């Protein structure tokens, strides 16, 4: 009876969990399906159709898709590198040379994330406009880095705290200087952690849509802004909207899937592992 009971339970759990999973994933599935349809087929809501790449071709032909994608890539990579460049030394210093204020500094950094972006929208817009940063890739890299720096520092800090301090200490006593310590010991030892920090930064800056909408229009506009332009009547071209969206979403979704475990830790500032 017990075996039958647990089999039944297994079956019911499978059915319920999969129905919910499909329900949650459905909008994405629908977008994928629609991107392989023609515009006429898109309105027929059928799942049986002749798949075509026509919409993808049209997205590339009629819009400057590659330039938007290029901006997204440049911005995300720029933010990731710049944030790590600033965060690694800071996290190293706090993890291995903690002072009386280390914990306060960490909490203060975190608290800068609490400031709503919209609270400083106008000054930033005017500063960026007057210094020629408006609608430039570097302008967006600067602002995204400032927003994500606390996360980068926190993540690097929690990973560094797991590195055995004795190893660094021994190297230091043997006469290694700070750079050798960081580059030859710390970075190789915490590479997986730093990689997932970088991945999280990549995902967050790829998907950021407040500053990109407000600080870029054409020249530096990333994919978030390009897709937002479909909110005009263009959005009724479902197949093209879906194709453009799928291209914008797919790479980052795959990365997110691969890194899900590490993302939990990064997104919760190390509180959930």
């Amino acid at each position, binding site marked *: 009876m017990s075996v039958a009971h647990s089999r039944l339970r297994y079956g019911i759990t499978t059915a319920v969990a999969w129905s919910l999973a*499909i329900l949650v994933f459905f909008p994405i599935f629908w977008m994928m399906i629609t991107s392989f349809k023609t515009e006429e087929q898109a309105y027929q809501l059928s799942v049986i159709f002749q798949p075509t790449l026509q919409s993808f071709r049209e997205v590339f032909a009629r819009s400057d898709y590659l330039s938007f994608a290029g901006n997204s890539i440049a911005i995300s990579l720029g933010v990731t590198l710049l944030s790590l460049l600033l965060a690694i030394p800071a996290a190293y210093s706090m993890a291995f040379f903690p002072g009386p204020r280390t914990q306060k500094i960490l909490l203060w950094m975190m608290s800068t994330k609490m400031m709503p972006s919209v*609270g400083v929208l*106008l000054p930033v817009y005017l500063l960026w406009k007057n210094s020629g940063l408006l609608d430039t890739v570097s302008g967006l890299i600067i602002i995204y880095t400032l927003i994500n720096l606390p996360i980068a520092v926190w993540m690097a800090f929690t990973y560094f705290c797991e590195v055995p301090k004795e190893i660094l200490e021994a190297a230091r006593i043997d006469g290694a200087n700070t750079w050798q310590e960081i580059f030859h010991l710390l970075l190789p030892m915490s590479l997986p952690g730093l990689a997932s920090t970088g991945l999280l930064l990549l*995902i967050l800056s790829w998907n950021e*849509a407040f500053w990109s909408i407000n600080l870029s229009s054409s020249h530096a506009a990333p994919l978030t802004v390009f897709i937002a332009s479909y909110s005009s009547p263009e959005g009724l071209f479902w197949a093209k909207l879906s194709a453009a969206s799928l291209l914008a979403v797919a790479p980052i979704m795959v990365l997110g899937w691969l890194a899900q475990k590490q993302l939990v830790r990064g997104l919760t500032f190390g509180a*959930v592992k």
Partner: protein
Amino acid sequence: MNSPTREALPAVDSGRPHAASTARHARKSVWTQRWLLSPAVISLLLWSVVPLLMTIYFSVTRYNLLSPDESGFVGLDNYRFLWSDPSFLPSIANTLLLTGSVLLISVVGGVLLAVLFDQEFFGRGIARLLVIAPFFVMPTVSALIWKNMLLHPVYGLLAAAMHALGLQPVDWLGQYPMFSIIMIVSWQWLPFAFLILLTAIQSLDPEQKEAAQIDGAGPFSMFFYIVLPHLKRAIGVVVMIETIFLLSIFAEIYTTTAGGPGTATTTLSFLIYSMGLQQFDVGMASTGGILAVVLANIVSVFLVRMLASNLKGENEQ
């Protein structure tokens, strides 16, 4: 570093041999700490102070980019105007309603889904990937896919489904605008809560569960006395992180309803955007910005305390 300091921060610096801290190392460490820490601290300091001071300054001046001749100090006039603006109070209410509803949906839904996905079932790994997927979709994409393809009153999938069931299709974003926005935003954030809570639930000691089962705990008492207390901290973290993001939801509204109809979906973020970058009234928009900062601070004072006590809890372990 001298040793009293080190004892004050046990979690940060346990396991370091005391013997190693000679005077030379102490000097070196203070120096290292300062110059390695300063680039990050200085940039964050500038970022958190300069724009905020400018917002405060703009909020007490008359400053409209369309009429640059009229300018100057106006005291609290902007605050009075904003208060009497018919869209101001609704925008605060909408912001709180959106944040609160999405939090409730994502935390309750996230806990239930996490408990379900903690059970063994066929293809669990793949099903989990499907559930977390919406979190990686950029806000403008999810808003437009929902608006155009699912919620569209004539051609949308929901309209077709309701037709098939013999019901009258609903103009979701027209008739139930806030409900629709809540639905879209929850779709993005429930997966986040689920991912965090599932990770937390899986760190629950199986022996503890077995012990409770042997003691005759049913599924309900198991949930309320074992699982939920174990998730308390993770739930706190989810609430905190989601609050930060939800208080400034913008792109979803910008691409779907543009704050309408009327002020039905105008949040504080959207109101400030439209005052500042559509009507070019820098003074009024900055006043709104200050109130957004105040609102976030009221929420965050409470949240940072929670995080701080969480950290202490970890240090004690």
